């Protein structure tokens, strides 16, 4: 049992560490997808199959797509999304903070005496999860629905291209100059062209 946990943990931590030390952004994204798969493996080992499949479906099937699209839409060079590594002092400071956090957390974990393991492993059958979601947790489910709808609308609006901007600038300019002047000027500009077209 513990051997399988050790293998899953080693795989996940290794891919996470590699993901954040690569220079190529696409390689980082793909290694992070491997990390998420490793986390799903942990869920499978712990017996929470529904969550494991949900993790693969949501993270590997949807969030990874968003990340890859974002990487491809925000690069300057057409060929490779290379990121410059951070400066040495910054990396050292981050490593220091990270190590301190790990030390504090591991010390807290190792010094706490948790109760004995339950005799039977808990099972989360789909039916049980369904009854919980529709019964006691129905309010949370509705809130999650609202959150996801807001995220959908917000992301669409934020990422939509600003095609209205030039027209908006033109409209405000026109309103500043006064409606009469520019419209007659526009009409005068338009008419000769029309005349030429009609003649030809």
């Amino acid at each position, binding site marked *: *049992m513990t051997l399988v946990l050790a293998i899953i943990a080693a795989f996940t931590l290794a891919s996470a560490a590699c993901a954040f030390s690569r220079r190529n952004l*696409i390689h980082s994204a*793909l290694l992070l*997808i491997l990390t998420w798969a490793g986390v799903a493996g942990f869920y*499978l080992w712990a*017996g929470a*199959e*529904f969550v494991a*499949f*949900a993790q*693969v*479906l949501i993270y*590997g*099937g*949807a969030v*990874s*797509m968003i990340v*890859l*699209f974002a990487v*491809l839409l925000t690069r300057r060079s*057409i*060929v490779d999304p290379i990121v410059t590594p951070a400066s040495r002092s910054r990396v050292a400071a981050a490593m220091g903070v990270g190590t301190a956090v790990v030390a504090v957390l591991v010390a807290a974990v190792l010094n706490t005496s948790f109760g004995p393991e339950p005799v039977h*492993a808990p099972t989360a*059958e*789909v*039916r049980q999860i*369904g009854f919980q979601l529709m019964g006691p947790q129905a309010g949370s489910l509705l809130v999650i629905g609202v959150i996801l709808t807001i995220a959908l609308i917000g992301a669409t609006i934020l990422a939509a291209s600003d095609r209205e901007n030039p027209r908006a600038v033109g409209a405000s300019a026109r309103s500043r100059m006064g409606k009469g002047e520019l419209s007659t000027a526009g009409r005068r500009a338009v008419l000769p062209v029309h005349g030429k077209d009609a003649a030809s």
Partner: protein
Amino acid sequence: MSAAFLVSLAASANAWMSGRAFPARTLVAPDADRFLERAPLAARDWVVGFFPVSLHWLVHSLISIVAVLAVFGLFFAFLTIIERKLLGRIQNRLGPNRTGPFGLLQPFADAVKALTKEDIVPAAADKLLHFLAPVIVVAFGLMGFAVLPFGRDIIPVELDAAVLYFFAASSATELAIFMAGWSSRNKYSLLAAMRALAQLISYELPLLLSIVPVVMLASTLSTSEIVRAQGGWTLGILPHWNVLTPWGAAGFLIFVVAALAESNRSPFDLPEAESELIAGHLTEYSGFKYALFFMAEYFGMTALCGLGVTLFLGGWQAPCAFLEFIPSYVWFGAKLFGLILGLIWIRGTLLRLRIDQLTRLAWKFLVPLALINLANAAFWSLTAGLPWPGQIARWIVSMALVAVPFVTIGRTLSAGLAPRTYKYA
């Protein structure tokens, strides 16, 4: 292959190690005692009996994996020749008929060609990703077969959340398509891969939404339970399959359209058609890797058809009570084959859609219809106990809930477009 092996192994090992009794394959239905019906399971148990008890879970999984690979590998091989002959006949010509009688050895000729072709990898390509993409596509395409109930009690892995597992397995194939397009370091491949990705994620939504009513009415995510819930016959001749209800018919049609798009098949084969951006994201692939992509597309199509048969067409259930003497796996195979023939027919008949046409179809047409279908199925479930005049009203309201949105949304979306006229020669 190894991925399917690992999943099956993990499931059996998990069951074995956590002390749960290894699922005993007991056949309870009276007709199941017939010899033909029992034959596959009896054969498997006979082979497993040769090994010591501690290895039973391993041998059990290995036999399921080998059986699935052998059956569906051969099925894929003959599907290619059947498709080419049928498309030929639809197009008023003979299909391949040179290799072997009626061209039946064509798949093996194709395999030899694919294996002996030079494997060209572009010099600037990302070698590891270029190699991994076809492998991942085939592996995760095969993993979907693990939860299809091929017959009474014949299912490789019995999972509580089987339908969710199926979609988790097929979501990794989309990643592999992106990897294929990006690792080729070709502008056109990348563009085509992003278009393919847009098509795949657009059609995932109608696919999942069309399945939710089935899950809701069967109140389980397990595929074998869903097939069992479609058992029984009214008056001995009318089966209780989901497709024979109004919401089921609409759901099945949405599922078929979305499945066509998810497996990149005509009329949604924009990503891989030869006249669109050369060959799309597969431009830089040749030889065996191209054959692997081709194989993965057929496996994906077969798995999705298998899921459609399971969820809508009653799985391994026979259509009439007196036809139950035919074994359950024969019924599953016949329904699967019939559905695939329907898809081949569609391929030979309908024109290819442009990318904006197909995304518009997904988001503006199929998603609202699938949501209304969900409400329709809920209405159907809530009115299940009415006396018989209420039943007639229930059918009429349900069919109206299918027909009216279809006509109104269809008319609204095609407003302003002239009717299509075909000029022959």
